[in-house]
């Protein structure tokens, strides 16, 4: 009987159900889509911020050099997946012939691919650390070869262009290289001459050594706990600090794998990015909560408007002898049905929307979370129940005779 009435009600009031269903789908999609975007937006924004330069600098703890072999170990730390850029440098002065001028030579990787211990490919080097850098001509790849790239400002001063052959002379050695490109990075690089790392080590007699390493790591904004000195922490606090991607925690882990190093966050970059990220999260959370409120009101008002129309139906059922409990169950099962179907469809529409927004803005797919699915269902069910509950309560309080009399 109850099921028959339920199905008959669905069939008879197709338009009303369709509108209520559409409302539930729209509301849930809005909530699921925004929360979905919120879940991943801060990580995406953080990655965007990390496309332009380092936020951790690794230098020798005392004077001297770091070992080149330790550079690769940075991709083995606990937060290895958050390391998005690594670039080692070996600096020295050399005289450029035939120009006859002393220039700053940086031995580095422009683009160097290596395998992490887990077998994943990782591309390190200046061009991945600073995506804004442009090379006219060709970059050298890896760390070998007789090739060189010159900073745009230095190339202008010395009147050099790709294809030119240069002789570089340091206190230790003299080597010959061929210019293959001009780099425009909009920074100090524009006044340096770049050689493959091994070649520079050979030129300066510093085989296997680097002066410093620049690292770009995706980190979380520093809070009070993150700022604390780990030396003052209890063991448990230290574990929590160490396992959170705070910039000093990531720097500490790098320091542990790079022998004789001192790794420090670039505070201005780290703090600015932390603040920008926190504000962004707050902005998005505020807008999401506001949309959640908006969609709750929208769905509830649609359902309420629909229910108001059905006062006669409630009165008739009461007149025919149905108990309040029985009528309540009938209408609330409609609410459950609407909430469930609307929630499921809304979730699907929401992740589609979140995916489109992610792809359009950040160029990354939306990964989705089980919690989002559950949240969508709960929101849809609760809102539909609430929408049904108040008008139903009101309709049940009417005297059937009065309502049926019109």
């Amino acid at each position, binding site marked *: 009987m109850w099921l028959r009435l339920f199905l008959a009600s669905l069939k008879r009031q197709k338009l*009303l159900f369709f*509108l*209520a269903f559409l409302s539930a789908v*729209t*509301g849930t999609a809005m909530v699921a889509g*925004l929360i979905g*975007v919120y879940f991943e*937006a801060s990580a995406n924004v953080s990655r*965007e*911020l990390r*496309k*332009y*330069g*380092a936020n951790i600098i690794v*230098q020798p703890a005392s004077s001297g050099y770091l070992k080149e072999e330790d550079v690769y170990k940075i991709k083995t730390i606990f937060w290895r997946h958050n390391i998005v850029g690594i670039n080692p*440098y070996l*600096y020295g002065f050399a005289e450029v012939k035939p120009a006859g001028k002393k220039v700053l030579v940086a031995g580095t990787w422009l683009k160097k691919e290596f395998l992490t211990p887990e077998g994943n490919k990782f591309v390190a080097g200046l061009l991945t*650390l*600073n*995506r*804004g850098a442009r090379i006219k001509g060709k970059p050298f790849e890896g760390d070998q070869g007789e090739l060189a790239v010159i900073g745009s400002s230095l190339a202008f001063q010395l009147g050099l262009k790709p294809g030119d052959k240069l002789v570089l002379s340091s206190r230790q050695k003299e080597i010959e290289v061929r210019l293959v490109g001009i780099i425009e*990075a*909009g*920074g*100090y*690089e*524009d*006044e340096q001459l770049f050689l493959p790392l091994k070649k520079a080590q050979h030129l300066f007699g510093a085989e296997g050594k680097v002066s410093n390493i620049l690292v770009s790591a995706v980190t979380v904004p520093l809070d009070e706990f993150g700022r604390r000195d780990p030396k003052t922490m209890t063991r448990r606090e230290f574990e929590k600090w160490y396992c959170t991607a705070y910039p000093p925690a990531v720097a500490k882990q790098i320091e542990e794998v790079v022998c004789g190093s001192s790794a*420090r*966050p*670039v*505070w*201005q*970059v*780290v*703090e*600015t990015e932390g*603040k*920008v990220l926190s504000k*962004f999260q707050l*902005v998005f959370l*505020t*807008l999401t909560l*506001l*949309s959640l409120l*908006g*969609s709750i*009101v*929208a*769905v509830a*008002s*649609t359902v309420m*408007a*629909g229910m*108001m*129309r059905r006062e006669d139906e409630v009165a008739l059922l009461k007149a025919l002898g149905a108990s309040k409990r029985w009528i309540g169950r009938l209408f609330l099962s409609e609410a459950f049905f609407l909430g469930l179907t609307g929630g499921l469809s809304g979730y699907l529409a929401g992740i589609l*929307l979140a995916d489109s*927004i992610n792809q359009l*803005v*950040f160029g990354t797919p939306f990964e989705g979370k089980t919690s989002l699915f559950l949240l969508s269902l709960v929101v849809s069910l609760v809102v539909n129940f609430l929408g049904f509950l108040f008008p139903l309560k009101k309709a049940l309080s009417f005297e059937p005779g009065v309502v049926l009399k019109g």
Partner: protein
Amino acid sequence: MIVERLRWLLKVTFKSLARKKSRTFLLMISLTLASALSTVFLVFPRGARMGLGRELRAYGANLIVSPFSQEAGSAGLSLGLVADSGFLNIKALKKYFKQNPLVKEANFQLLARGYYQSQPVTFLGTEREAFQNASQFWKIEGRSWPEKGEVLAGSQIAKRFGWKIGQQVGFEMGKKKFNLKIVGIAESGSFEESTLLLDREALSSWLGVNDVASQVLLRVEPTSKIDFFEKELKNDFPELKILTLQQVVKREENIVIKVEMLLFLVTIFVMVATSISVANTTSITVVERWREIGLLKSIGGSNAFVTGLFLLEACFLAFFASLAGFFLGWVLTEAFALSVFSLWVPFDWWSMPTSFLASFSIVLVSSIWPLRLIFRVEPALVLKGQ
């Protein structure tokens, strides 16, 4: 005749709205919230852009002006002094920067080489206000600004020579010898860590120079005008070397573009969802009034007349709901902007009618769309109860 007809229409509209108070109230709440939501999404991104722009300023200088090359480093990250510097004329440049509204901050720095126990050390002379701006995110142990006879040591140099806070250290500069007290140790993550920081004027007097600097770190805004500023500066001071820190500029531009794009897409999405929700609620209220429509049609009301009647009602509700929603939305926007960015979204006469009209259009269009249902009402069938 027309006035009479209009008066009659208004009377019917008001009566209809007043008769079903709960329905009118529900519609008003729904429409007001939809309008408030539209207003927040239309106005708040402007506040977010302003707030984020202000936060991004903390990245610091985006342009370095110097006589010639003096530092090694990567992009904006300086890795140390590699050549002796020439000098810039502070007076002329300060006057020039003061007149240029694009220059938001100028940090004049003086670099000098000195010796500690025959080991070379670098002194970095700076101005108090500029230093406080630049060092707001550094980790400073001890005092954050050295007075006369005092110096702030970078963490690397302090570590190298084993200096402690409160220690008196003897330095040599040319033929001059002097003692300075270390009052603080600073960690910046950049080249300042390997320098001794002190007041620029104190350093100038030891060097025997006046009103000169080795370099000036500039903050130019908006970043979109940085190329224009660089050209202008090159034109007016051709002897200077200007280095735009593209990494800082691009990082800021990229993040602003991404956040704006994200907010724009979310706004579109919320507007569409809001319109659908408003249309749904209005549709249901039209369906609820099936009998009323049937009766009006049966006593001779044409589709156009009945639609006109409902349209007037929709306009009336949309106008007042948009007005209330607009003010509610504006208050919410200001509250959010104040709590998130501690700023007011400036009120401007252009954005107010635009935001109001946008939210009014959303509410009105979404309310009008369901009115097409009126055409489907067959009076005889409805009055028969089918």
